[in-house]
């Protein structure tokens, strides 16, 4: 016992010395003394994604025997905290999978990650449109390269609609109101209740996105009020169940795992293209099929109103000791046929046209994803502001939408509150970084 105590106090003393000596030190490099360079790659995801990514890493290591890639992955739960602690401790991985809105927190001035423009000769960006690359660009520094693109989409249970005699999809919202009448009372053709869906409608009318790139509101209060009124009309005509109904039935979960979706009573839904896969896999187990109808519109629409955003960007740490090797690896998974094939579609379809071609040629694109690509290509929309997904701002508009949805406030009040609350939240975010 005594020697244990002694030992322990020695450890503690040594540790304390370390603390004072290296309190300002950067993370230790992960390279060994040998010629082999080790880079770390971190991501979150589900089983499929882990398997595919590990495959891609193996393929890369085979081609580059002098580089070892250490895989650091887990599920989504808690990943945000892990990431935040790592970044604040300067111990983040060399290559990271990053969420669109995180840049506002991690890299408000574009200084938080390595500027990938420096590695343009290593990473081939020719398959990316200028527009989509803008998503990873902060103050002229390329902080991240988007893996995919997400588009707001409506998808429906084809079998149920067919069963009730609907074989041709309506092209307008009014058309869907008619469908709602054709279906039994407890069936809803398209479930939607989020503020994003209301925005899609307003975008169709105005051709503008809700928040500009720097977080300014582009809509007038009247625009917003019209949006809420329109949403109420969709509820009243039975196109979508009410927000209250959704809360009780679904909670804050994805509807992909609800009884009502699986038995077809929620016949369709409004969501991002990236999640179609989990919906379609779940639905397949009940023997039914998912389909993508054309995006319904208002008359004289100025845009199709399908909001778009990049999904999962890849960044390189500014602390990386081996940025070139990291860039090489990034290029491998984004452009190299072997890398692209191994990565597959577990992160959704890549937005890189080169990678798309490789996957399609290799037959790795499933039915619903193919439909989603066609849909995204043929539907015009607006790129969502980075601010939209930020927790403070999302909380602000979701809160107001909830209050409206349960009948606590009128559409006029909702419109007014959206403007004041979102503005306040944006101001808050900006003040933090200045």
């Amino acid at each position, binding site marked *: 016992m005594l020697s244990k105590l002694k030992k322990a106090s020695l450890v503690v003393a040594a540790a304390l010395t370390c603390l004072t000596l290296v*309190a300002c030190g950067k993370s230790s490099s992960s390279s060994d003394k040998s010629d082999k360079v080790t880079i770390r790659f971190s991501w979150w995801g*589900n*089983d499929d994604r882990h398997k595919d990514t590990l495959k891609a890493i193996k393929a890369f290591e085979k081609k580059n025997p002098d580089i070892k890639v*250490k895989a650091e992955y*887990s*599920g989504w739960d808690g990943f945000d905290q892990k990431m935040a*602690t790592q970044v604040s401790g300067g111990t983040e991985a060399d290559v990271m999978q990053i969420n669109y809105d995180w840049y506002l927190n991690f890299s408000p001035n574009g200084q938080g990650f390595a500027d990938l423009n420096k590695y343009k000769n290593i990473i081939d960006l020719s398959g990316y449109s200028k527009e989509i690359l803008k998503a990873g660009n902060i103050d002229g520094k390329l902080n991240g390269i988007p893996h995919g693109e997400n588009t707001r989409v409506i998808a429906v249970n084809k079998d149920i609609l067919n069963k009730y005699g609907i074989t041709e999809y309506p092209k307008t919202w009014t058309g869907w109101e008619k469908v709602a009448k054709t279906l039994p009372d407890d069936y809803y053709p398209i479930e939607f209740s989020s503020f994003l869906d209301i925005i899609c409608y307003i975008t169709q009318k105005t051709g503008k996105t809700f928040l500009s790139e720097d977080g300014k509101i582009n809509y007038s209060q009247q625009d917003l009020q019209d949006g809420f009124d329109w949403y109420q009309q969709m509820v009243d005509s039975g196109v979508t169940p009410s927000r209250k109904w959704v809360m009780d039935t679904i909670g804050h979960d994805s509807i992909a795992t609800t009884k009502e979706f699986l038995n077809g009573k929620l016949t369709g839904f409004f969501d991002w293209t990236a999640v179609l896969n*989990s919906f379609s896999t779940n639905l397949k187990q009940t023997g039914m099929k998912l389909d993508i109808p054309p995006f319904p519109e208002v008359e004289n629409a100025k845009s199709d109103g399908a909001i778009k955003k990049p999904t999962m960007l890849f960044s390189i740490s500014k602390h990386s000791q081996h940025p070139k090797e990291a860039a090489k690896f990034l290029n491998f998974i984004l452009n190299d046929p072997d890398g692209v094939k191994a990565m597959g579609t577990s992160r959704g379809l890549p937005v890189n046209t080169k990678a798309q071609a490789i996957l399609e040629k290799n037959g790795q694109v499933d039915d619903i994803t193919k439909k989603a690509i066609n849909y995204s290509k043929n539907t015009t929309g607006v790129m969502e502001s980075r601010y939209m997904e930020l927790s403070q701002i999302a909380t602000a508009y979701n809160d107001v939408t909830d209050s409206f949805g349960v009948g606590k406030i009128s559409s006029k009040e909702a419109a007014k509150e959206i403007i004041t609350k979102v503005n306040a939240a944006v101001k808050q975010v900006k003040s933090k970084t200045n």
Partner: protein
Amino acid sequence: MDAESVNNKVRRKHTINVVWRYVLLIITAVIMIYPIIWLLGASFKSNAEIFGSIGFLPKHIDWSSYVKGWKTGTEYTFTTYFLNSFKIVIPKVIFTVISCTLTAYAFTRFDFPGKKFFFGIVISTLFLPAVVTRIPLYIMWRNFHLLDSYVPLILPTLFAQESFFVFMLVQFMRGIPKEYDEAAIIDGCNSFQILIKILVPMMKPAIITVVLFQFIWSMNDFLQPLIYLSSVSKFPVAIALKMATDASSGFVPWNQTIAMSLIALLPSLILFFSASKSFVDGMSAGGIKG
């Protein structure tokens, strides 16, 4: 009334009493564990069946969720993750019992300057939400160069840093009359012998409780290991359970997650069940008869 009929009456009353108790116990048990039984059923179902029906019997028994779940989508199987968990949990339990007992002993049986103040610190460490000490702790361990090891998870328990257990043992130790100590001193025991020979045996139920809780809570703890460990090869079961749970990244096989969650309960359940037996051993020293 003769003696025999009185005896019969007493016996009958006793039987009725026992029956009543069982009825009560069974009803409560059903309410408590029906949900778990439902989970057991769910582990055999497909996603569509889990979320689509509320019955607990699966359409057909299919063990593949267990087989696939055990294999995981990662480079390692649950065998690795379980071993890792034990590597963390077992030292934690041992260290906690030793260090917290010593600390509780100091607080209950000795007087020293600053005692009240120190005890105040023990209790007040429970009051601050862990969220805000996470970053400073992380940076501290980074400066110690001990990230991606089990040291940040285990070492603090060697120094009685889990106030819950210190506080609990203090409460139990204070329930033991000091006359026992005094008798032991007369018998020539030193202070350490009093602790080991007198107090620890009397506190057996409390110490078993510490073992149980530390084991179960450490098995379940997922956030701390997630933050301190970066190598998947070092992950414990609690993280492995969540490896696939990201609905936004696509399909999540919930049956596998549930199946593995249930398997992960087993070590805790077995330990609890056997510890509960040793509670019974203690019955000779305490407890109500019949």
